[in-house]
């Protein structure tokens, strides 16, 4: 993974000192709250319902065990012993004291972490394929490019005051595991006409109040021109994006108002006349960054391991975990293990300090000290030898971290909602817990098959409800929490925005409504069809009828 050089250390260190001074000035009365708010937000510090919330960047979801242990320490010493992994693959602490923040930032800087640009109208944490560098369907590791964008966008003077926040996602794999088409700019590494890899560039995807699937702006961009091209996109947005209405300020609104063809023309015109030589990364600098992501020296081994086979036969719970949470690795004899933060009863995405420490130990012992955070709020060990799977599973299971529901109904995405968040209109965590309880049976979950259930506590859609096969949105209707259900969304290559199915449900009726939807799907599905395929074939009517009765 990328390691800070002297410049990086000095830069982050300076930011910590600056913020220490800013907090001191706030506490001494030299800054009012109005003056202080933009400064704290620049450092990922929000004031929420019960306390301050600090959002720590985990660049493209990559962590080592030293960093995860440090996060565990922060949780134990400065919070209530747990943290929340987010859909931006960041980590949030929800019970932070303002007076402690400078010390926390110092502790994070020591392990090459910070909170810069985890808030505000800037380029946010770049997200990527959680299996990057390990997946067997990968054309090229996207992480060096993520790091290039991270360095380029950090306190970029031209793009520090964008009309609104800006999110990138990059994948280099055949399967989109990063919801690339729901980003302001989505990049897919593809093979070009002459056999070279380059980027397929999408723009204007997003969720929130007005969801859009990203549109292709360029089918193929030479890799060496990445920075100049995305700079032109951002420049057109910075110039023409609306600043008068926060709800219409994201690039997706501009792209859809101009139309993709006109927007493309504007970008290409800017790009044509731009100083590409001054902006594009020199090959030597890219080679330097890329060298941090050299593939580990794994020795290919047998794809069949006797211990795993034995256990698979004798232990159905292990077999369930193996089927759903273990994914193929590009090196035979190895695999990728998803650690679900989703067992019934847990707040989706929450991990205690003890759990973080355990996972850090396991990463050190079984995964070459590497860890990933998935946007679906799980952790990933990317390089596990097949021969170690049983031992790994036993340690995870003993800690309640071996729930085998990855990409099944229980693997819900869920924002913090009204239990923590100042923006929320309704709670999401208790609803997620209740649904998890109802569908706790792993046999039933597997019978239902792949299903993405996403839930947000407000229209801002941090819980990606628009991209859920089943999406739940909490709204406030005259002081009562009400939940709108939508169906048919997809975060994958066949990206789609889910359709609202009908009037909302009261909180206590939501699990039953989900059950009705699932029963309808099971009754109507054809052999081998997953939920999304059935929805696409039969449409909304059968679900509406089951939920609301015949029209």
């Amino acid at each position: 993974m990328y390691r800070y050089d002297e410049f990086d250390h000095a830069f982050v260190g300076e930011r910590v000192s600056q913020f220490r001074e800013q907090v001191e000035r706030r506490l001494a009365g030299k800054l009012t709250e109005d003056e202080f708010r933009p400064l704290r937000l620049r450092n990922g510090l929000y004031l929420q319902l019960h306390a301050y919330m600090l959002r720590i960047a985990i660049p493209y979801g990559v962590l080592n065990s030293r960093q995860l242990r440090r996060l565990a320490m922060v949780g134990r010493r400065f919070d209530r012993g747990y943290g929340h992994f987010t859909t931006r693959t960041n980590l949030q602490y929800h019970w932070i004291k303002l007076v402690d923040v400078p010390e926390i930032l110092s502790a994070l800087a020591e392990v090459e972490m910070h909170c810069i640009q985890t808030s505000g109208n800037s380029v946010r944490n770049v997200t990527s394929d959680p299996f990057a560098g390990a997946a067997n369907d990968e054309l090229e590791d996207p992480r060096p490019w993520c790091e290039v964008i991270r360095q380029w966008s950090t306190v970029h003077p031209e793009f520090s005051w964008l009309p609104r926040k800006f999110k990138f996602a990059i994948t280099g794999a055949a399967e989109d595991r990063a919801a690339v088409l729901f980003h302001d700019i989505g990049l897919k590494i593809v093979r070009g006409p002459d056999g070279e890899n380059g980027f397929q560039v999408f723009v204007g995807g997003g969720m929130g109040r007005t969801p859009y699937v990203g549109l292709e702006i360029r089918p193929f961009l030479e890799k060496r021109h990445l920075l100049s091209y995305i700079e032109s996109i951002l420049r057109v947005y910075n110039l023409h994006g609306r600043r008068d209405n926060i709800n219409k300020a994201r690039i997706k609104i501009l792209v859809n108002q101009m139309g993709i063809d006109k927007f493309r023309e504007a970008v290409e015109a800017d790009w044509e006349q731009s100083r590409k030589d001054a902006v594009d990364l020199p090959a030597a600098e890219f080679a330097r960054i890329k060298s941090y992501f050299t593939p580990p020296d794994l020795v290919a081994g047998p794809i069949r391991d006797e211990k795993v086979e034995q256990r698979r036969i004798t232990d159905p719970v292990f077999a369930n975990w193996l089927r759903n949470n273990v994914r193929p690795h590009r090196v035979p004899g190895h695999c990728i293990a998803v650690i679900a933060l989703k067992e019934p009863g847990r707040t989706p995405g929450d991990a205690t300090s003890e759990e973080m420490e355990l996972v850090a130990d396991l990463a050190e012992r079984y995964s070459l000290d590497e860890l990933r955070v998935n946007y679906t709020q799980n952790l990933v060990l990317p390089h596990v030898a097949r021969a170690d799977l049983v031992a790994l599973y036993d340690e995870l299971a003993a800690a309640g971290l071996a729930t085998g529901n990855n990409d099944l109904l229980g693997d819900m995405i869920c924002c913090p909602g009204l239990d923590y968040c100042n923006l929320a209109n309704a709670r999401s965590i208790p609803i997620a817990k209740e649904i998890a309880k109802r569908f706790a049976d792993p046999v039933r979950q597997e019978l239902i098959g792949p299903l993405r259930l996403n839930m947000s506590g407000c229209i801002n859609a941090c819980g990606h409800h628009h991209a859920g096969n089943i999406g739940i949105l909490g709204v406030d209707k005259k002081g009562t929490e009400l939940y709108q259900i939508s169906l048919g969304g997809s975060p994958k290559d066949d990206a789609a925005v889910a359709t609202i199915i009908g009037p909302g449900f009261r909180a206590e009726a939501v699990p039953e409504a989900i059950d009705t939807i699932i029963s309808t799907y099971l009754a109507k599905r054809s052999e081998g069809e997953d939920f999304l395929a059935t929805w696409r074939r039969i449409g909304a009517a059968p679900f509406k009828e089951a939920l609301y009765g015949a029209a």
Partner: protein
Amino acid sequence: MPNVITANRLIDGVVVYLAADGSWVEELARAAVANTEEESKALESEAAKAVAERRVVSEYPMAVGFEDTIPVALSVRERIRASHRTTLTEDWYDVPL
């Protein structure tokens, strides 16, 4: 409608309510209740002073109801704030509705 003043404590963000003696307390039950516009204004000016003194931030008046004579929050949001709790426990509806 009867109301109280709520805010977050500056140094740690904890939810607090303005009490009759001018202190900021974590229990809604101990909050000073304003029943008239005049009483509301008095509480608001007291709160503005506390903001200037950097004791609290994000202050605002909040409507309350009563259980016996004890003020209680009306909206779900304010019930959650007043409870100082979240859903870490396993019960459905940790904060009763």
